[in-house]
């Protein structure tokens, strides 16, 4: 009942010309970003973040959220037509989507991806409507020790899900914490790691870090090898799936929706993991697994549904607990903090307009995306003809504008460049940068919770073992660490 009342509040907030326009614009920009290879949703969100500072918080958040799920929609177009994923969550769509395009069924692949995404997106937002308030109601009882335990669990979950070396992930988290410590300590006003340099007193600018690590580094990786785009189809026909396509796809769409939603909830999960796991599940339970990789429509329907569903799932921990599970939601959290809003258990009570407004906008955004995606597919095809070598200097200009406009300070451009080069090098060395960004955004909250917890009790750090919920979360973190060690040892044994 509370959810329905809240949702009505949300629709009353969102159904204004400005918010509707921004939701539609964000969906369009998101789709465009998803379509264009080499521009990920994270970099795009960072580039457009300064634009939202001039907007009301709800309008800004609606626009940013719509870019996020719009990018998930758009990514499939590039995967199907070019065999190049528009963004990471569409990698698996290349496998069968592109094969379908080679067989002259690009329209069916794009159609089922769009319709599947719409169904999954709507179902997951409905689940979010019910689930997010319940989670916030539990978390509202949390004090600093519980918050600390929750954030530790979130970071350990992120480590568990990352690709590559866990040790490198741990290091990235610690470096994220260190970098966030630069500037003035909000508790006692003491300067840390500024070395008298005035540009560092306000801390390291989040936008410069994100645009550098995920925008500039991406460009540097891409310019190494500039490939020529070969679009398979010039005219897309038959977007509406046939009855046989529906028969084959409805179960994968529903499974993908459920799987994506729950994987989105888990820190470190999100759209990328959801799409890969959905593909693996569909292949495993299929009666004809040999068809996968050769143009099976289930291999498009399931992962595309999963990556869209995961968007709504991943919004829940941010809005209900204030804990981001992936870099994009970390940036959304950062955007709210910049606006002076701290998402968390009290967010729903203190800012129902924002909380429910975002949820309501996601219902509408899914409809906008379906309406935009199918009729505009011809336009996206034409856009794919723009070669990357022409595109990247424009993206670089956008990176500069996005970074500079946050503080009007050229120093941030140097920070962006430094992190761009660092991100490029660290990618080469197989460091996963997601834990770094999540830790960088979460660090002030982790530090505050830890310090408040230590002050709260005469027993010092033992307070973390005196609160049942904290003990439970730290124990779960310990179990995950043990599982990671076990997994690594097993992998080590397998390599011998």
């Amino acid at each position: 009942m509370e959810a329905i009342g809240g949702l009505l509040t949300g629709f009353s907030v969102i159904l204004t010309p400005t918010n509707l326009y921004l939701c539609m614009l964000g969906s369009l920009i998101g789709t465009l970003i998803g379509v264009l290879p080499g521009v990920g949703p994270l970099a795009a969100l960072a580039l457009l973040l300064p634009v939202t500072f001039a907007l009301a918080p709800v309008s800004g958040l609606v626009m940013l959220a719509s870019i996020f799920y719009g990018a998930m929609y758009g990514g499939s177009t590039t995967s199907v037509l070019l065999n190049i994923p528009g963004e990471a969550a569409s990698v698996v769509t290349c496998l069968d989507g592109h094969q379908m395009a080679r067989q002259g069924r690009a329209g069916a692949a794009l159609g089922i991806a769009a319709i599947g995404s719409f169904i999954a997106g709507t179902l997951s937002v409905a689940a979010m409507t019910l689930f997010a308030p319940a989670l916030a109601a539990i978390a509202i009882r949390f004090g600093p020790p519980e918050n600390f335990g929750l954030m530790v669990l979130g970071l350990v979950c992120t480590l568990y899900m990352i690709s590559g070396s866990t040790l490198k992930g741990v290091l990235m988290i610690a470096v994220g914490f260190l970098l966030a410590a630069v500037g003035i300590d909000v508790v006692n006003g003491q300067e840390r790691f500024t070395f008298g340099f005035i540009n560092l007193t306000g801390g390291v600018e989040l936008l410069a870090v994100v645009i550098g690590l995920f925008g500039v580094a991406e460009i540097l990786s891409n310019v190494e090898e500039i490939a020529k785009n070969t679009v398979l189809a010039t005219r897309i026909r038959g977007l509406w799936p046939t009855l046989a396509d529906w028969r084959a796809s409805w179960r994968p769409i529903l499974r993908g929706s459920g799987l994506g939603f729950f994987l989105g909830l888990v820190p470190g999960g999100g759209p990328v993991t959801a799409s890969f796991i959905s593909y693996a599940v569909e292949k495993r339970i299929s009666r004809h697994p040999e068809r996968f990789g050769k143009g099976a429509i289930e291999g498009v329907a399931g992962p595309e549904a999963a990556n869209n569903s995961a968007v709504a799932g991943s919004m829940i921990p941010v809005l209900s607990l204030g804990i981001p599970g992936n870099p994009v939601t970390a940036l959304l959290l950062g955007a709210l903090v910049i606006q002076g809003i701290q998402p968390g258990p009290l967010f729903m009570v203190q800012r129902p307009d924002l909380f429910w407004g975002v949820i309501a906008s996601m219902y509408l955004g899914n409809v906008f995306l379906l309406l935009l995606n199918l009729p505009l597919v011809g336009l996206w095809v034409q856009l794919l003809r723009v070669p990357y070598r022409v595109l990247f200097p424009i993206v670089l200009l956008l990176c500069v504008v996005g970074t500079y406009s946050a503080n009007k300070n050229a120093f941030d451009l140097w920070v962006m460049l430094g992190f761009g080069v660092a991100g490029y090098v660290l990618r080469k060395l197989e460091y996963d940068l997601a834990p770094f960004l999540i830790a960088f955004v979460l660090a002030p909250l982790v530090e505050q919770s830890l310090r408040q917890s230590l002050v709260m009790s005469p027993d010092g750090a033992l307070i973390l073992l005196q609160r049942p919920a904290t003990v439970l979360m730290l124990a779960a973190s310990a179990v995950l660490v043990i599982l990671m060690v076990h997994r690594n040892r097993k992998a080590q044994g397998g390599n011998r």
Partner: protein
Amino acid sequence: MFERAVNVFWIALGVATAAYSYTIGLIGVSGPESGLFPFIAALIVTGAGIALFGSARSRAAAPVYPRGAALGRVLGVVGGLAFMAVGIPWLGFAVAGGITMMILLRTVEHARWWESVALSVASVAVVSWLFGHVLGMALPRGPWGW
């Protein structure tokens, strides 16, 4: 070799920040001080750096570093951004962006002169119009007012 140097950097970073955090103060009479949290993070950086230095298994499989033309393109982008960082406060966004873009198109993309000029002018005009006019963001201006 390069990765080992990076690991040494992590160890040095961890030790230096731990030492600096210690000087800020870890625990005071009123509880934790400003240095405690970065000190813990620095210890983790040091520990992870040492572990990575000693662990062959955690090393990147076979990182491919750019050479020749690819290296030129990467350095071209880095140089272009550095020029923008230096030039923007003096020249404004439009001129600094236009020059950078033209250089990138000529050196990285090997576009023809007229293509480079046309694309640079058009891109800068569109970005300036979109961000400066439509979205109302104050882009840096040069001494000539734009």
